[in-house]
């Protein structure tokens, strides 16, 4: 069978740093092709070249045997290559129909826009995906999943036979992931070639046929997934086995660093209590969106529960605490809160690594005192956490996901905090950086700190934590030692509650 798209010997450098070196990739109709590698391995760059966002320095793209080049994403789409990027590219202030036809609007009467045709074709394309959205709905009124489906419909409507999905599930909940997977399978059955980028193993094995692994901008290999196991795939990506990912567990038998009692998230939900001891990493597990995040955020005022009491360092705090001052009061008691969305909620992306690290130190001092420079603290934090940046003044937004996450962690480790609340510690982070972050958290606990963590990745919770609380229906339904926990056991505890 011929390949609809072949990329041969692609190289690309940005400034001085080489992003891709002599990478080749061939796609087959009717297959889902996983593209894997650590962050910075060159996956996104390779796909952006295929999508016309970047042009390769050398190498060629062959479309059905003929050499082509794409000057911009529009040219790639016209050649039948549709992309759903990590950062969504739809315009929020335009309707679905307008987005579908933007840049290629049909002309109507008197030189105007053929809106009726746009509407009808859009409706048809959405219907082929089984969607009943109104074409006149603004994209800003759609959920993230719906936006991705619209992008896929966009590709279908443009008659694309190559679909690139760059971390499509990073922002989706479980139900939407199922729907997305159904669409991907439908595309595969329709004979399309699909490239699928994701960091989530379970997804890769659930829907992909072939996997290509990149490392440091170079091709490691392409294999059928039937020959692979998660462990061997990770080994291929990092040259290291899964077990090595998680550090040894600790003792975790100190005094309570945090005790929460009688927490009722909603007026009609069941109250529950939990504790985190010094030297211990405790996780909130269970199905997504069952109240894990609410329970954690209630402690810092980012969620307002019906009632509850927190004991911390001899102080008793009655919940709810005000949203305005919640985090500040938490920090004053030696706590830290690392939010899930580091880009929107955590980091100052335009500021330097140094400024981001010392933000919490500055916040603890009186507002009118002259700011200290803290260069030694920054240097020590960067060294301890192995933050790879060109220097203290490097812009955080330009770093890889793993390094950004380490900067965010560093902000709180640089303070004297001894209790860390952390959401999704490794979201959008590559395997190598994951291992480092796990080690950092474990070291923190070993030094007498306490960690409360929540994550969508159950395997991560099992590997990282000492103790797990399973949360379901806005209350704790089970408590288990992480060492003995399994994915199946957690699901069972959640669903049989």
């Amino acid at each position, binding site marked *: 069978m011929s390949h609809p798209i072949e990329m041969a010997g692609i190289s690309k450098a940005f400034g001085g740093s080489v992003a891709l070196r002599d990478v080749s990739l061939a796609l087959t109709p009717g297959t889902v092709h996983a593209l894997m590698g650590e962050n910075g391995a060159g996956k996104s760059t390779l796909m952006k070249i295929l999508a016309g*966002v970047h042009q390769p320095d050398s190498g060629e793209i062959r479309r059905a045997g003929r050499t082509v080049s794409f000057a911009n994403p529009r040219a790639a789409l016209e050649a039948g290559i549709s992309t759903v990027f990590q950062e969504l590219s739809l315009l929020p202030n*335009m309707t679905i129909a307008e987005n579908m036809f*933007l*840049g290629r609007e049909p002309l109507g009467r008197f030189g*105007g*826009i053929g809106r009726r045709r746009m509407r009808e074709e859009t409706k048809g394309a959405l219907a082929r995906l089984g969607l009943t959205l109104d074409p006149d709905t*603004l*994209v*800003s009124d759609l959920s993230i999943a719906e936006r991705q489906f619209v992008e896929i419909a966009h590709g279908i409507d443009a008659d694309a036979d190559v679909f690139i999905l760059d971390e499509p599930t990073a922002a989706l909940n479980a139900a939407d992931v199922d729907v997305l997977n159904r669409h991907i399978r439908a595309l595969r059955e329709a004979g399309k070639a699909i490239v699928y980028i994701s960091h989530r193993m379970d997804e890769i094995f659930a829907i992909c046929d072939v996997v290509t692994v990149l490392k440091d901008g170079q091709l490691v290999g392409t294999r059928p997934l039937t020959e692979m196991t998660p462990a061997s795939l990770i080994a291929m990506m990092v040259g290291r086995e899964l077990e090595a990912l998680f550090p040894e567990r600790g003792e975790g038998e100190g005094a309570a660093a945090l005790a929460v009692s009688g927490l009722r998230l909603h007026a009609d939900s069941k109250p529950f209590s939990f504790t985190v001891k010094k030297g211990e990493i405790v996780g909130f597990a269970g199905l997504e969106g069952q109240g894990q995040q609410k329970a954690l955020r209630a402690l810092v005022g980012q969620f307002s529960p019906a009632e509850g009491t927190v004991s911390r360092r001899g102080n008793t705090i009655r919940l709810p605490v005000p949203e305005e001052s919640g985090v500040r009061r938490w920090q004053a008691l030696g706590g830290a809160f690392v939010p899930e969305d580091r880009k929107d909620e955590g980091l100052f992306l335009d500021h330097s690594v140094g400024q981001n690290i010392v933000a919490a130190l500055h916040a603890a001092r009186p507002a009118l005192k002259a700011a200290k420079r803290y260069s030694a603290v920054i240097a020590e934090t960067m060294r301890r956490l192995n933050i790879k940046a060109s220097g203290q003044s490097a812009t955080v937004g330009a770093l890889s996901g793993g390094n950004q996450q380490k900067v965010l962690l560093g902000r709180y480790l640089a303070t004297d905090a001894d209790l860390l609340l952390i959401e999704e510690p490794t979201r959008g982070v590559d395997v190598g950086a994951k291992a480092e972050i796990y080690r950092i958290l474990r070291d923190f606990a070993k030094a007498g700190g306490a960690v409360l963590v929540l994550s969508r990745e159950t395997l991560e919770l099992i590997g990282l934590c000492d103790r797990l609380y399973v949360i379901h229906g806005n209350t704790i339904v089970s408590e288990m030692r992480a060492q003995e926990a399994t994915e199946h056991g957690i699901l069972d505890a959640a669903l049989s509650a």
Partner: protein
Amino acid sequence: MISSSSTFGKLLTGRGSRQGLWFLPFLIALAMALWLAATTSQFGQWSNLANLVAQGMPLLITAVGQMFVVLVGGLDLSIGSVVSFTTAVLALDLPVTVTIPGVFLLAGLIGATNGYCVTRLNVHPIVATLSMQYVVLGITRVLRPVSGGSVPDSVRWLVEGSLFGLPLPVFWGIVTLLVAWKLLYGSRYGLHLSAIGGGVASGSNDAARNFGIPANRNILLAYVICSLFAALAGVFLAGRIVSGDPNVGLLMELDAITAVAIGGTQLSGGVGSLHGTVIGVAVLALLSNGMNLLNITPFVQTAIKGVLLMAVVALQSRKKIGL
């Protein structure tokens, strides 16, 4: 029942559409007109209404032009100077066959320069057009340091005459709105302006470019259109004051921005409507007309304008359009 109330809710908040919050200002304008009609005897008179249209026309024309720039997330502060400049040129001792084409040509050039500075030299729109405001104002004052000269009768007739029993300013308004409507809604250009503005407002300047839209060219054209409308307003004003005046356009750019903002166009770009801008102009024109009828000092009027602007804009949540 539910659907009608939610449609009304959408209308009130401006949600679910790209037109912004125009309905509330519409109610304000309507209430002002009804109140003036009820409390003063002169308001409803034919002569006052004609006067209202003629007084509001320069604002309408400049605000419509300003809206193009605001839609792509920009601002044009130079249009007041362009208005003054136009009156100064028309009051030169030259035939209108030279001055009118000349003034539009120069205005187009001014707009193109603004657009070039913003798109290619990456100067912030406020800085680029503020510089242009000074440059054009300086040249205007060289041409005509104080008001004077005379404008040809033909231009004067275009403003003071009437056609089919209607005063000519009405037709200026109709032509302005038709041209703007065609550009904004009856062409791909207008859609592309919204797309560019939507990208800018949601923090990705390349979003529209990725769809194959030539963003820089379209933005530059928006500044040209804005400047051309300003020159048109200048011709209108020249016909009204019948002389050249270097100060006649002073602060007109701020009034235009005020009208655009009151009409629900978001200054971050991507959201707004032509009828909203007309409503914004109507609110300001009614305010000024009503205060005159009620014999209230213009200084109070200025203060009320400020309060109104703050109140209406504060009611629009800036994060309304996604992201």
